[in-house]
């Protein structure tokens, strides 16, 4: 679950909007007749029974400030509204906000809020509530994520019921992305809360298309349709997210009809499900892919080692770019995709996955798979296997014996052990040995960063809708904070990062971000073996309107529910 939180939001929001059918071309409901909404669903609204979704995890909190897991955010997306949403093409569109603009100096934002939205308890939603929510997230430092999305706003004001005015100290190019995380909570409830972190929020009053009916920790979340929704209400009566821990049990639950859809199941179950009548397996187009697998190298230079906590025990030979380049050339990305993920991925390049639209630099020059060239390169550099044990020795000026590296992977990724073995076999062919050990995510964090007490780690990332988040992991300035995982430092890269953060011209910013991706591939703090495609499966006997005809929509999280309608 770690580090896979954010991207699913992008998909969620895309589905939500597609389903509402206001600003989008309603691609999601095109299962049969083009018009997905109430008219085709059997006459009225909310006539349709309850959709059951089998999921692997469960929300960790009903309090939107406290949520960490993707499951929580899926729920918030349905129960709460945000001022602005992002859709899968990377475009930002209106949700609660009808309009937003920035002053000429780029420091004052004016947001107009929709008139007539109400909370689940019947109270009207006004600009006051939006302003209150932004301040709540900004000022509650103990909330894990949301404060960073509200932090830039120095003043927040609501001069009238439909206007919010925000000021920032520096121009904010990611304004829309930040607004997509402001879940608007009712001021009349939250202003009486002393400690927002300790607030359980059991009633979960929001303004979204679904309201909370019942939730049981570790068991299920039951939402019911908000028939008074200010936008287009759902066509179904409700939705149940049922936690089914075991992947095989999830697959069985779908085949027996206990649930209508499942997410997160092993690629090995794909063919079984494809051959089961009434079940559709949907493999998302890679262009919607927002998650990546990464192989990171500890390249921390001695002078960059964090003062107090740094161990910086990285293998000296890995700091040699030639060694990393040879390893990249010996990495058969396609084989990893075919064997470990059974083909549900595409070869990776850098930290920006294809799902981020034009920020993704597909033309980055990568290393071609070539074992012989890799061997020749290491030979030329002087790494020789003088004792004939199959592993090359270090150079004389390096403080190490031979090219044997510690290799850790995150043991909560089910394909990681397989991938580690494959990599071991590939690198063996160029005289590089790895000692594989799986570690739980927390232990991995403690050896990773900012201690830098490892050689190689195989892990994964889920991206933000904006590339600035993931590109930040390679900054010199993040080495001490522990956000940098590799200890990589290239001032040229940092300069570009700082420049793009304030660049208001989109094309110019995209260009800088493309340059940064090329630098990452050239300098190789990471090898990105592949970008992941999400896989979902659903039944069509009780509900139709699943987002199968839109190639860019992954059903990564099940909020396409808004487009669903009962089967005839």
């Amino acid at each position: 679950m770690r580090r896979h939180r954010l991207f699913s939001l992008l998909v969620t929001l895309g589905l939500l909007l597609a389903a509402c059918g206001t600003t989008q071309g309603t691609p999601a409901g095109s299962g049969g007749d083009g018009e997905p909404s109430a008219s085709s669903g059997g006459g009225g609204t909310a006539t349709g029974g309850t959709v059951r979704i089998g999921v692997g995890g469960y929300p960790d909190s009903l309090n939107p400030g406290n949520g960490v897991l993707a499951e929580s955010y899926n729920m918030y997306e349905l129960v709460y509204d945000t001022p602005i949403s992002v859709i899968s093409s990377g475009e930002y569109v209106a949700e609660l906000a009808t309009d937003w603009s920035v002053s000429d100096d780029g420091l004052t934002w004016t947001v107009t809020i929709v008139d007539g939205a109400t909370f689940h308890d019947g109270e009207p939603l006004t600009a006051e509530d939006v302003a209150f929510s932004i301040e709540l997230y900004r000022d509650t430092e103990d909330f894990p994520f949301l404060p960073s999305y509200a932090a830039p706003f120095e003043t927040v004001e609501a001069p009238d019921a439909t206007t919010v005015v925000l000021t920032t100290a520096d121009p904010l190019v990611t304004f829309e992305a930040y607004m997509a995380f402001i879940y608007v909570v009712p001021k009349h409830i939250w202003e009486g809360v002393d400690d927002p972190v300790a607030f359980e929020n059991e009633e979960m009053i929001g303004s979204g298309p679904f309201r909370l009916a019942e939730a049981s920790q570790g068991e299920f979340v039951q939402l019911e349709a908000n028939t008074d929704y200010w936008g287009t209400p759902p066509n179904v009566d409700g939705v149940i997210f049922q936690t089914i821990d075991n992947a095989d049990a999830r697959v069985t639950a779908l085949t027996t009809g206990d649930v209508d859809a499942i997410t997160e199941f092993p690629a090995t179950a794909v063919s079984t499900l494809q051959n089961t009548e009434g079940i559709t397996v949907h493999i998302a187009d890679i262009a919607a892919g927002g998650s990546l697998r990464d192989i990171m190298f500890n390249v921390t230079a001695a002078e960059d080692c964090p003062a107090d906590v740094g161990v910086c025990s990285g293998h000296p030979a890995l700091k040699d770019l030639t060694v990393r380049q040879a390893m990249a050339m010996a990495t058969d990305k396609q084989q990893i995709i075919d064997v470990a993920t059974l083909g549900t991925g595409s070869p990776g390049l850098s930290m920006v996955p294809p799902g981020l639209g034009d920020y993704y630099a597909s033309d980055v020059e990568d290393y071609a798979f070539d074992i012989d060239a890799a061997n020749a390169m290491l030979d030329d550099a002087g790494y020789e296997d003088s004792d004939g044990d199959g592993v090359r020795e270090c150079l004389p000026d390096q403080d190490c014996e031979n090219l044997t590296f510690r290799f850790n992977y995150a043991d909560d990724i089910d394909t990681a052990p397989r991938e580690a073995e494959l990599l071991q076999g590939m690198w063996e062919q160029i005289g590089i040995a790895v000692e594989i050990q799986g570690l739980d995510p927390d232990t991995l964090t403690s050896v990773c960063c900012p201690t830098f007490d490892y050689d190689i780690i195989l892990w994964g990332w889920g991206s933000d809708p904006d590339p600035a988040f993931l590109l930040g992991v390679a900054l010199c300035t993040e080495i001490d904070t522990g956000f940098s995982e590799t200890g990589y430092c290239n001032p040229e890269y940092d300069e570009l990062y700082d420049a793009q953060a304030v660049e208001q011209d989109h094309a110019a910013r995209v260009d800088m971000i493309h340059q940064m991706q090329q630098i990452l591939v050239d300098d190789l703090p990471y090898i990105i073996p592949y970008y992941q495609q999400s896989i979902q499966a659903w039944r069509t006997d009780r509900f139709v309107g699943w987002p199968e005809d839109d190639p860019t929509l992954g059903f990564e999280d099940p909020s396409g529910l808004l487009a669903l309608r009962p089967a005839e």
Partner: protein
Amino acid sequence: MSGRGGYLLRKVGWALLTVLVVITFNFVLFRVLPGDPAKSGLRDPRLNPAAVEALRERFGTDKPVFVDLEADNPFDSQFTAYLGALSRADLGTSYAFRDQPVSDLIGQALVNTLWLVLPSQLLAIILGSVLGLFAAWRRGRALDVGALTFSLFMWSLPTFFLGIILLVAGAQWFGLPTAGRVTIGANYADVWEAALDIGSHLILPTLTLTLVLLGEYMLIMRSSVLDVFGEDYILTARAKGLSTYRIIRHHALRNAMLPMVTLIALNLGFTVSGAIQVEAVYSWPGLGALTVSAVADRDYPVLQGAFLLIALSVVVANLVAELIYGWLDPRVSEG
């Protein structure tokens, strides 16, 4: 001190001491694990140092673990805070679920666990004892060989594997539910429908757990009864011409039950720890599942609470076993 009163006092004293040791050990054990709860609970390294500091302060993990002799107040430590809260019966607040008191989390999980494990234990104890008794009685015959093979097979089968097999078979062939305790969101017409629903959800997990537990009870019961059958007083009873039923009921069973009592007490004690593997297969939100996720999150308060509860119940179950021992075999409490 001698006699029953002394025996009782001694046993209770030891039990209390054990609990105290466990409280301390629990505290140390989890802090030896690598990792930082302030970060792991959040699963994201992109936290600014101030936020991490704020969380540590909230959790209290910014304080020294035991004592810090250089500090103003050397005893203002995590351990004294833990003991203080515990003395007020306050188990603290979960790190991973930051708005949930540990007692709520554990309480709900405990109810769910007992719901599953108690019926399974009872079934396994009854079936295992009866099967063991009959196997011993029919030693070497087809019944014995069959029961023995079956028990050994079930005992050695990995729980996880058996669970998956039963789940797939039960769901595909008999239409039994695949996960959870009840059909979520169901509106029952009457009480019978509710009972039927709950019952159908219980069948597979209970069956799995019963089969896994049964073997051990059967094997212990069988060998224990066989031991007793070899005793002289059984031979005497036979020579007196007593019926087999009378021999078993009045002469063999009570003595043969001693090892069973130990086993039952031990197993019942561990009942509250849940059946981790069965809970995982059938998505049963019990204590086992909670403990596993708490380990992954370095959720010290939940772990401390869960382990304390498990330790307490094991100690209490053992105490009860000792007392039953004394009643079954008066020699124990007199000696």
